[in-house]
């Protein structure tokens, strides 16, 4: 397999690069997500999460959905990660406070067991289902014009509903986080 890998490196490196363009950010994504979940310091966890968002955005771009990848970078890295960091700074969890622990009632063993169980079930489905045994089609692309026409054409109701939802979330978050005015 190594000889084949080296042979394709010399003749058709673009294929190797095309595959590893998806796999390398995916590995970074998984490592960053794992680090983010087990970290003690919240800010470090948030920064690892930002790294995993960036890696996920690169995976999206490598899969051919460039618009979604850029939207992921813009929304998640530029907005969600920042608001997460702001919330951590505003709620300053100084050391491990009254209830003292890093882990909640279920404990690290319980959570890990649940996660592992769900992983086993999912992997079992993935590797035995006939739906997932598909060959790789030709590279696809999602041109922005087509996305725009779809949004304004077939999916316009969903677009308007998302607008209403985002407005409601904006007003709700602002009202919730406002300081109580002293009477």
């Amino acid at each position, binding site marked *: 397999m190594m000889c084949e890998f080296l042979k394709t490196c010399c003749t058709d490196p673009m294929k190797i690069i095309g595959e590893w363009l998806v796999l390398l950010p995916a590995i970074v994504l998984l490592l960053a997500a*794992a680090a983010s*979940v087990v970290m003690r310091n919240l800010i470090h966890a948030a920064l690892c999460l930002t790294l995993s968002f960036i890696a996920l955005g690169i995976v999206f771009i490598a899969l051919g959905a460039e618009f979604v990848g850029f939207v*992921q970078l813009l929304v998640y890295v530029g907005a969600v990660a920042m608001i997460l960091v702001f919330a951590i700074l505003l709620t300053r969890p100084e050391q491990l406070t009254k209830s003292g622990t890093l882990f909640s009632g279920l404990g690290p063993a319980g959570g890990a067991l649940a996660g592992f169980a769900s992983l086993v079930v999912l992997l079992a489905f*993935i590797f035995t289902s006939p739906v997932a045994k598909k060959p790789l089609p030709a590279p696809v692309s999602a041109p922005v014009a087509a996305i725009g026409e779809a949004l304004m054409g077939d999916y316009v109701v969903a677009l308007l509903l998302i607008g209403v939802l985002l407005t409601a979330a904006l007003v709700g978050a602002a009202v919730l986080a406002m300081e109580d005015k002293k009477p």
Partner: protein
Amino acid sequence: MTLQILLAISAILFAFGLTAVLSRSNAIMILIGIELMLGAANLNFLAFWRFSENPAALVGVLFAIFSIAIAAAEAAVGLAIIILVHRKARSVEVDDTNQLKG
């Protein structure tokens, strides 16, 4: 690069998110886990879109866009609630906010 590898990556990411939600006590860590799970779902959508017979219909792509928008809205409202809870209860650990426990 098969569909199974992509789905496996998404499943592992989902498992990490689930572990974070179930085992961490800080509410913000739970929110981080939720974001990881949503990211895994988006990866799933785009993996199936990539391998679909009709990628020009853009169903997976649009689903992922809407999912990102909803995740952002939910993160904003969730964090506003966490800030409010911190203001009242002086703590964001979920074990400290159990006044409704029967």
